[in-house]
C-alpha cells in the first residue's frame, strides 16, 4: 500500500526519481536511563518535488524520523538515501557539506541566530557553502522578497513577530536552492491566520520552485496542504496515502 502510493505520487509529479529512500530505519536512545525504541524499521520513499506531511501523536517518532532522514541524527539500523546517496555511509564532515548544499530546514522555534539580522541569517547558508559575501547578500535579499518580508532585512529576530521570523526561516531554508526542505512543526508556534499564510507560502514555493518538502506536524490543516500524508505510531509508519486536497495535484 505504501509503495503504491509513493509510485503514484512520483508518476503524478512527472518524475520517477526518488528524492529520499529510507529502508528499515531503526533508532534507539536513552532517556532518563530508559532505552527508547524511537524508530522501528521505517521504510519510506519521497519523490522529487513532493510535499509530504508526517503526522502522529506525540512521541511517535516524527521528529526523530525527520532528523534521521535529514542527517541531523545518526540511526542504529537501516539505510537512508537522499538524492541517491547513502547518508549513513557519509562521514560527519561530508554529511554536513551535503546538508549545506542540498537541504534546507524550518523549525517550530525558528532557530534564527539572535545576534544576526534577518538578511544575515538568510545569507548564512550561502556563506557556509562558499558563496561570495556580495552575491550571498544579493540572494538573501531576494529570498526575503520572495517570502514577503523584505522590509525586515535589517531587523534582529527579537524585533520581529513569530510569523515574520518563520518567513525569514523559510527564506533561509530556500536561499541555497536546496533539493529538499525539512520542516519540523513549521506552524507550531503561530496563530491560525499566520499559520495559513506560512503554508500558502510553502505550497507556492513547492509549486513554483519544485523543491521537495517534508513537514512534520500535529496540525491537520497543515497536513492537508501536502501531497501525501504519512501517519506514524510507536516508531512505525502506520499509513501513507495521497492527501485529499493536493493528492490529486498534477
Amino acid at each position, binding site marked *: 500500500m505504501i509503495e503504491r502510493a509513493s509510485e503514484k505520487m512520483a508518476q503524478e509529479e512527472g518524475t520517477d526519481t526518488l528524492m529520499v529512500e529510507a529502508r528499515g530505519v531503526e533508532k534507539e536512545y536513552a532517556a532518563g536511563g530508559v532505552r527508547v525504541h524511537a524508530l522501528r524499521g521505517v521504510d519510506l520513499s519521497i519523490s522529487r518535488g513532493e510535499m509530504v506531511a508526517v503526522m502522529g501523536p506525540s512521541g511517535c517518532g516524527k521528529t526523530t524520523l525527520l532528523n534521521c532522514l535529514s542527517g541531523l541524527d545518526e540511526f542504529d539500523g537501516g539505510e537512508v538515501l537522499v538524492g541517491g546517496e547513502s547518508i549513513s555511509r557519509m562521514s560527519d564532515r561530508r554529511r*554536513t557539506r551535503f546538508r549545506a548544499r542540498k537541504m534546507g530546514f524550518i523549525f517550530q522555534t525558528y532557530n534564527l*541566530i539572535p545576534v544576526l539580522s534577518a538578511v544575515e541569517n538568510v545569507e548564512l547558508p550561502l556563506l557556509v557553502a562558499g558563496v561570495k559575501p556580495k552575491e550571498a547578500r544579493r540572494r538573501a535579499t531576494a529570498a526575503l522578497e520572495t517570502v514577503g518580508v523584505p522590509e525586515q532585512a535589517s531587523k534582529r529576530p527579537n524585533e520581529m513577530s513569530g510569523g515574520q521570523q518563520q518567513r525569514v526561516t523559510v527564506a533561509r531554508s530556500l536561499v541555497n536552492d536546496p533539493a529538499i526542505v525539512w520542516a519540523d512543526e513549521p506552524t507550531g508556534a503561530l496563530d491560525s491566520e499566520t499559520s495559513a499564510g506560512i503554508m500558502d507560502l510553502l505550497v507556492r514555493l513547492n509549486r513554483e520552485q519544485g523543491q521537495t518538502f517534508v513537514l512534520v506536524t500535529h496540525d491537520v490543516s497543515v497536513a492537508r496542504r501536502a501531497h501525501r500524508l504519512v501517519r506514524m505510531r510507536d516508531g512505525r509508519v502506520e499509513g501513507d496515502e495521497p492527501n485529499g486536497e493536493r493528492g490529486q495535484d498534477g
Partner: protein
Amino acid sequence: MDELFGIPAQQLTRVLLGVFAAGALILAALAARDRTSFRMAVRNIPRRRAQSVLIVVGLMLATALFSAAFTTGDTLTNSLRTQALENIGRVDVVVIAEQPGSAQPSAAAAFGAGGPAAPEARERYFDGDLVGKIRERLSDAASVAPLARETVPVTSPGTDLSEPRVDVLGMDADSMQDFDRLESASGETLAPGDLGEDEIYLSTKTAEELGVGVGDEVEAALFRPTTEAEGEMPSERGNRQRPAMPQGPPTGFEDGARPPGSTGEARAARPAGQERPPRFEVAGVYESGANPGSDTSMVMPLGNLQRLVGEDGRVNEVLITHGGPAVEGGKHTASTVDALRPLLADNGLEADPIKKDALEGADQMGEVFSTLFVLFGQFSVAAGMLLIFLIFVMLAAERKRELGIARAVGMQRSHLIRAFVFEGALYALAASTVGSIAGVGIGWVMVRLIGGGIAGEDFRISFSTSPRNVILAFCMGMVLTFVVVLISSWRVSRLNVVRAIRDIPEPDRRGRTVWGVIVAVLVPLAGAVAFWQGLATDMTAFYLGGLSLVLIGAALLARVLGVPDRVAFPASGLILLALWLTPASITTPAGMARGPEMFFVSGISIVAAGVWLVIFNADALLWLVVKVFGQVRGLPPVLKTAVKYPTESLFRTGMTLAMFMLVVFTLTAMNFIQAAMGAAFGNAQRLSGGFEIRADAGYAAPIPDMEVALDDAEGVQEGDVRAVGEVTNLPLEIRQKGTNRDLQSLYVQGVDGGYTGNVGYGFETTTEEFGSAREVWRALQTRKDTVVISSDLAPSRNSSGFADTEPPVKLTGFYAEDAYLPDDLYLRVKDPDSGKTRDLRVIGVLGSSAYFAGDVVTSRDTLDALAGRPLPPQTYYVDLGNGVDAAAMATTLEREFARSGLQTEVTAQTIRDNDATRRIVFVLLRGFMSLGLVVGICALGVIAARSVVERRQQIGMMRALGFQGGQVRLVFLIESSFIALLGIGVGVALALGFSGTLIENIREGIPGMEYRVPWSALVLVVVVGYAASLLTTYLPARQASKVYPAEALRYE
C-alpha cells in the same frame, strides 16, 4: 603578620570572623525558613559540574591572592627571625657604649635602594665593675656575662691567607654558663676556660677562609699599647686614663678619642713600630655558639684579649640572657632595659635589645612585603570581583527561563534573591576555603623566589604560615565574594516574568530607572566632593580621582538625558584618557602630593575610559576585522557569527574586557617601570659618582693617606689610579636650625678634595648662587660650615608614601623639587664627644642617584673642626685609569692592604647586586599581578562554557545549515580571541601611553629613569595571556563542535 594597612591583624580577623559568623547564622536561619529556595540553590550546583568547578576557581582567586600575600609575609618574617636568631642565640640584650640611631627596615631596603651603610665603629670599653652592678640590678631574672670584642684582620702565616674582618670575642668562661656553648661540627663542646694564653678557637668559616685547622697558627692584629695616654676622655663617657700609642698614634688617634664610624680607639690602632701581631695556636674549630658574633669569629679567654688590647679589667659589651627558648627569651627585654636604664645612662652606656630589635625588624619586613603584595595585588582583586559579578550575572542569564517560571508560580523577588544568595554563599564557602589554602602554596613559591633574590645563598627560607592568616584570607575572600554575590543577586531578581520565560532581552531603559538616575546623580556629586577634598588636602589622588568621577557621572547623566551612548561614553572616555595621560605637573596644581595610591586610581580610570572607547566602537572594529579577513576561504560565515556575539552582550564583553585590560595594563606599566628603573640603576657610572671602587679600612688599622699608600703599593702601577677620595665619618647630633625638634644622632661624612674634585653626583636643588654641581662641590670644599644633604632628608612633593620610614632627621620649609634652596637653611650639629656645636649651611640636596653618598656630607676640614681633631679616613673611593679592570684592582688593593683589613667592593657590582634584589621584588609583584591575568583567562573560560550551554540550539542550527564542527569551534575561538586580543592590545596600548607620563612623574624622584619599551616582557604578556585564554576557551569550543545537531535542536 601583626598589621595590615595599619589595622591590627588580630582585630581585623576577629571583626571579619564576626561578620562571617553573623552572615552564616542569618543564612542558616533563612535556609531553615525557606527550604525551597535552599533546595533550589543546593541542587543547582551539581547540575553542571565542570562549570561549578570553573566558578569555584574563578571565585577563589581573590582569596588565594590574599592568602599568598600573607604567607609570603609570614615566611619572610620567619626566615628573617631564624636568620636573626642564628647570630644572636640566647643573647637577649647587649650593653654597649651609646650608639647613633639606627634606621628601621623599610620598603626602600626591600627594593635594595640606598647605598652601603656607614662603616662599623669599634665599641668603646668601659669598666668591668659595671658587670657586677648590672648583675645586681637584674638579680635572678637574667644571666649576665662580660665580653670584649674586637674586629680585626687575621692572617695565617702558614697559608698566607687572610680574613680582613674577624670578630675576636673575649669570653669569661664562668659567666657564659647560661649562654650558648661553643660546639664543634662533631658536637663536642669547646670551653674558653680550657684555652692557654696563646690558644684560640676559630669559627668554621674563619678556619676555612684561612685554610687552617687545629694545631695551626694564626696572627690577629691585636695590639697592646706600651705607653699611657695623657689627659682624659673629652666626653662625659670616659672619665678614665687613656693609653697612648707607642710611637705616636696614626692621624686621628692622637688624643685617644673615639672617632666612631670611621676609626677605632687609639689602642687598637696598629702601632707603627710593632712589626708582627700576636700569634695564636688554633685549639679547636667551632660550628656554632659564638654569639653575638659574625660567621667569621675567634674566641679566646676574656683576660687574654683584655691584656692584648691594653684593656685589663675593662669590657666593651655585657651580654644578658633571660634563659628559656631563643624567641621566648626576648619577652623580658623591656623590663630588663627599664631596670638598667638609670645605671647605664650614668655611664654613657645603653642596653641594646638586639633580639627584640631583630625579631621586630623581621616582623616589620614581613609586614612590608605582605602590605606591598596586597597593595599591588589590588588590581587582581578588582579583576576577581568583576569576575565574581560576571559569573553570577551569567548564572542568572542561564536560568532566566526557570527564574521567570518560579516567579510566575508565585515566588517573590526575595525568594529569588535568597536562592541566589544561598547558592553564591555555598560557592563562596568552597572557593574561600580552597583559595585560602591554595594561596599558602602560591606564597611558598613566591617566597622561594624572594629568598634567592634578597640575600643570595646565605638566606635560608624557613616556610611559615599561621592559621590566623589563613583564616584572615578566608574571611576577606568570603566577605568580599559574598558582598558581590548579594549585589548580583539583587540585580538578578529584577526580571520581568514574561520576558524571562520567553527569553526576550530586557529593554534598554537607558538608565531611566530609579537606581539609574540615583547613580547618575550621585557619581558626579561624589566626584565633586573628592575633587574639593583633593584641593583642600593637596592630594592628587582625590583631585584627579574626583575629576574622573565627575566625567564618568557626566556620561551617565548624558545617557539619562537621551544623549546616544555612542557619543556620551566615548567622549567621556576620551577626556578621561587625556586627563590621565597628561603629566600630573600640567593637570594638577603645584605642590600636590602623589602617593602609590595614584597607580591604582589612574589604572582604574584609564581602564574604564579604554573599555568605553572600545565597547562603544566595537562594531566598527569588528567591521574592519570582517573586511580584512572576510576574504579568506571558509571564514565569512564563521567571522560573521563570531563577531556578532561580543557586540550583542556589551555588558558581558565589557566586563571581560575590563578584566583583561586592567591586568594587562598594570602588568605592562609595571614592566615599563622596571625597564625605566633598570635604565636608572644600570648606569653605574652615574650612581657611583664616577668612582669604580669603594674601600673600607678596618678601624683597627686605618690608612691615613691612601694616595701615599698606593704609591708604595707594589701591585698598583702608575696610571692605575686616577684619583682617590677619602671620607671620614662622625656621629653627630643634628636638628634643623630654627626648629625645636630633638637632636637626632646621624653620621656625617667628611670628604676631602680628592672626593669633591672628582665626584660626579648631581643635585636636585641647590642655593641660587650655584650654576652647576661642580660649583657646589667646590664650595663644599672651600667654604667652611657648608653641607649637602641626601634627598632622603629633604621633603618631596612626590613622596612615594607607602612603607617608607622617615629618616631620623627630615627637614622642612622647602621641597626637593624647588628650583632653589632657601639661603637660610641650616643644620645645627653637635659633637657629643667634643661638645662643640656649629650651624652648617645646606647648599645642596643630592640627587637620589647619589647611591654611595651619606645623609649629610661636608668637608673633612669642617668635620675635623667639629671633632676638635683631625679624623682619619676610613672609606676610600677610587677612580681608576682608563682600561683598568676594577675587579682585579679591588683584589689587588685587598691583598696590598690586608693588614689594614681593607675590604673593597666594585661599585658597579654592588649596584648590580642591589638591582638584582629590586628586580626580584618586581618579578614577584608582577607575579601577584599576573594572578589577575588568571582571573581574566578564567572569565573567558566561564564565558565560553556558558556560551556553549546558552547557544546549544543555535549551534545545532548552525550545524544543520552546514557549519562543520571545526567551524563551530572556530566561532568560539575567534569570539574569545576578539575579547582577549582587544583586552591585551588596548591594555598594552594604554600602558604605553600612561607609562610615559608615569615615568615622567617618577623621574623627578629617580633621575636617570628612561622610557624604554620592555619588548620581551610585552611579548611575554601578550603571548602567554593570549595562549592561555585560547587554551581555556578551547575545551568549551571543542565541546560545542561535538554537539550533535538533532540533540541540540531538541534541547530546551
